[in-house]
């Protein structure tokens, strides 16, 4: 077994016992990246010098008996949407090429304060708009389980780097499923925390009322350990919640006996891959065997979630992305004669097709004469979707559904058909509209060897229970132990 095959918590234990140093772990990751990332393309850029310096500092702390915490010295990497002081951050867009942030995102600061070396910036869809990582301005990321297929998106690089064992933990963001869907497609674990649980400060905005940064790793326990580092109130983010933060590892092994798990019938959608449905149904039986009670529930407004999302998210994006005008940072056209020309040409040159499509859609939905019919209507339907969940959670502790209706699809297969691509988020985005926590964990493989993911959704700020339910299933299976053939 190679050092990089260890899980995050296994490495943390070896660092604590002195069996391995952080410099050794960081060098092992860099060697693995050099070995496989040419095929995977998970990293947009490495910060080798910064990571090794952080690892040396971590080893010095360990030696003097003063580690910053249990994860001190564990190498991680972050999606290119997180601001990293002194390290170029592009959000996988040409419009931010060369942008070097003057400060860290709060989440990045917390990782550094926990002593974790940050290896670099991970590939993603441009401005997190996409479900296949193909809208990255720097080229697609590839799925380590089959490099002709997508790792999902938008946090495709965060998932692929884990599946390829290039790093022990990553950060992603989830606006409509961008942590959970790639986790499902790569046999990794991803948590979209409750809106407000993890700070958005220094995370490049896509749709501000939906964006949720969160941890990704190879096991449920690893994700719980990372959430422990990240979850806290941040006065720098006015939407950060001043809620109590439990110890996410404390109740992890408590099992599911006595819990009620809801099975929403609307999530077993037409067109779902039969192997995905079979794996999820089998997981449900497993939960029954472990002592949970399954409850049939209905979320009747689910079928409106996709339309609601694809009005609200582009509307917020069209507003957020107005800041990229070539004045303060990023790309500026060389062609323009006057200011107005400069705005239009800078943005046309800097943004890719998917970003322009969503800006156009959002601008249209917010424009005079259409605001009430599109944007305001979608906000009201969002209320109905939230109410469905509130009602369901009076009966059950959590909801269990598929994460993605299909396993990883071929790169290029859906790229020219936006509506077909948008359907990839059909199971995940209601959770964002309602602001709830959602966890995706491995629950099987197709006959062709492609990973399948199980989604758990919970009450606001009830991440601890989701992790406990996820862990109960994970403990019974070898899925997270299976290594991608790369």
């Amino acid at each position, binding site marked *: 077994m190679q050092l990089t095959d260890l899980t995050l918590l296994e490495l943390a234990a070896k660092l604590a016992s002195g069996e391995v140093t952080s410099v050794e772990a960081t060098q092992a990751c860099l060697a693995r990246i050099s070995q496989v990332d040419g095929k995977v393309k998970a990293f947009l850029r490495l910060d080798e010098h910064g990571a090794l310096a952080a690892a040396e500092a971590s080893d010095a702390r360990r030696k003097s008996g003063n580690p910053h915490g249990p994860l001190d010295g564990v190498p991680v990497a972050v999606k290119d949407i997180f601001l990293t002081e002194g390290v170029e951050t592009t959000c996988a867009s040409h419009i931010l090429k*060369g*942008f*070097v942030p*003057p*400060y860290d995102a709060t989440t990045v600061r917390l990782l550094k304060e926990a002593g974790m070396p940050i290896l670099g910036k991970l590939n993603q869809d441009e401005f997190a708009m996409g479900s296949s990582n193909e809208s990255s301005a720097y080229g697609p990321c590839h799925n380590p389980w089959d490099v002709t297929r997508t790792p999902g998106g938008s946090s495709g690089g965060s998932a692929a780097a884990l599946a390829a064992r290039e790093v022990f933990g990553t950060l992603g963001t989830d606006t409509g499923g961008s942590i959970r869907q790639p986790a499902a497609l790569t046999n990794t674990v991803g948590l979209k925390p409750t*809106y*407000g649980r993890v700070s958005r400060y220094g995370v490049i905005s896509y749709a501000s*009322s939906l964006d949720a940064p969160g941890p990704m790793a190879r096991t449920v326990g690893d994700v719980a350990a990372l959430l422990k580092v990240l979850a806290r109130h941040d006065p720098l983010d*006015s*939407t950060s*919640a001043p809620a109590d933060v439990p110890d996410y590892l404390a109740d992890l092994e408590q099992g599911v006996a006595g819990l009620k798990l809801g099975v929403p019938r609307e999530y077993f959608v037409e067109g779902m891959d039969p192997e995905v449905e079979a794996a999820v149904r089998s997981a449900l039986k497993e939960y029954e065997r472990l002592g949970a009670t399954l409850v049939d529930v209905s979320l009747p*407004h689910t079928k*409106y979630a*996709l*339309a*609601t999302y*694809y*009005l609200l998210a582009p509307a917020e994006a*069209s507003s957020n992305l*107005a800041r990229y*005008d*070539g*004045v*303060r*940072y*990023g*790309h*500026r056209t060389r062609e323009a004669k*006057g*200011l107005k*020309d*400069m*705005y*239009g*040409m800078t*943005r*046309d040159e800097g943004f890719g097709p998917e970003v322009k*499509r969503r*800006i*156009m*859609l959002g*601008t*249209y939905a917010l*424009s005079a004469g259409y605001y009430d019919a599109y944007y*305001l*209507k*979608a*906000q*009201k*339907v*969002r*209320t*109905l979707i*939230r109410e469905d969940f509130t009602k369901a959670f009076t009966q059950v502790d959590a909801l269990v559904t598929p994460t993605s209706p299909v396993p990883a699809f071929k790169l290029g297969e859906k790229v020219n058909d*936006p*509506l077909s691509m948008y359907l990839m988020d059909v199971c995940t985005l209601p959770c964002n*509209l*309602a*602001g709830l926590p959602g966890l995706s964990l491995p629950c099987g493989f197709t006959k062709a060897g492609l990973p399948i993911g199980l989604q758990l959704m919970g009450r*606001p700020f009830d991440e601890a229970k989701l992790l406990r339910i996820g862990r109960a299933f994970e403990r019974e299976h070898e899925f997270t132990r299976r290594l991608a053939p790369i």
Partner: protein
Amino acid sequence: MKLTVEQVRHVATLARLSLTSEEEERYATQLSAILDAVAQLQELDVSGVEPTSHATLASSLLREDVTRPSLPPEKSLANAPAKVGTSFSVPKILE
């Protein structure tokens, strides 16, 4: 709902995007298909339903009106495509 190229051009102006004519044609087709798909919301009666702008926020987004340290000018300007002294520089607006 069918969007015309003229409508696409108008929206592009509002969005400050200088699209090529090929892009205008493509977005007219793609946005029309997306608007057709989202039209299903019109079948729902939402009279009396309050809109949700944030799912979990119960309090005001406004913070206390107190001064805080901000980035020094050299850091704020470090990524500027063009600058003059401590100001961002842009092409002139008036002749």
